[in-house]
């Protein structure tokens, strides 16, 4: 501990007096709370940008991938293939990816 002579008491009092007053407390608390509610703006922008770019690039490749797939002629996969063209499947995958980003981005690390 620090010493406890008269000078120490004066020094502590001086530090105490140098602290900002309670009158500014509300404004400060508001600022901190505002930052707390949106602390990840930068992260959302960066991850969102990276995710969107990646999704767009992947999306351009998906259609050719689905075109090359040998679809089964019976079973539930065949039923899906009957109604879903490669474009629809590519769109579905993209929607899933976007949904994933929308789910993950608001969460804190």
């Amino acid at each position, binding site marked *: *501990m*620090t*010493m406890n002579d008269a*000078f*120490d008491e*004066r*020094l*502590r009092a*001086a*530090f105490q*007096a*140098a*602290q*900002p*007053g*309670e009158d*500014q*407390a*509300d404004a*400060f*608390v508001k*600022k*901190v*709370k505002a*930052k*707390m*509610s949106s*602390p990840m703006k930068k992260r959302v922008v960066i991850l969102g940008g990276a995710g969107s770019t990646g999704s767009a690039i992947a999306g351009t490749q998906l259609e050719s991938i689905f075109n090359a797939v040998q679809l089964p002629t019976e079973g539930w996969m065949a039923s899906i293939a009957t109604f879903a063209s490669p474009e629809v499947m590519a769109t579905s995958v993209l929607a899933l990816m976007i949904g994933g980003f929308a789910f993950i981005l608001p969460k*804190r690390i």
Partner: protein
Amino acid sequence: MQASDEELVALVVATQDNNAFGELVRRHQGLIRGMMARMSRNRALAEDLAQDAFIRAFQKIGSFSGTGSFKSWLCKIAYNEFLMAARKRKATDKAMEKFKGEVDDTEMPRDMGNVVDLDRALATLKDDERTAVVLCYSCGMSHSEAAEATGMPLGTVKSHVNRGREKLKAFFETAEAVA
């Protein structure tokens, strides 16, 4: 009855309650803002650093073990935030030099013994001495807590506090004699 700091921390950890944390901010904002102002010697920078320190505390509040006081834990986080900000300005030493050049002279002098400005007195200390003095006298940390917060050996902290204290005492006595 008013909830203790520890009870509020438990509430924040359990429920991420912003209002409970807001109450902790309200209780300790003066301490942390004052500490940052004394360390950085720049009021605008100190306000930003204090806000960042509370945000960091909110993010790390689960790591508060309750073995020491919440105040000391918060001061330690604030000190680390100050150091990180200084490192962002390349090297800590250069940053401290930069801060030295940015003393906020617009601030009204505050009296100690009706004469002297505490910030000007602190400006006469070396960086480590000022850090040790601020942590011990402003935050109320013990020498051991200050040593743990800064990573300095206990003996070094004691030396810095004693040397800093003597310099401040000499500064105030000289100023009062002149006045």
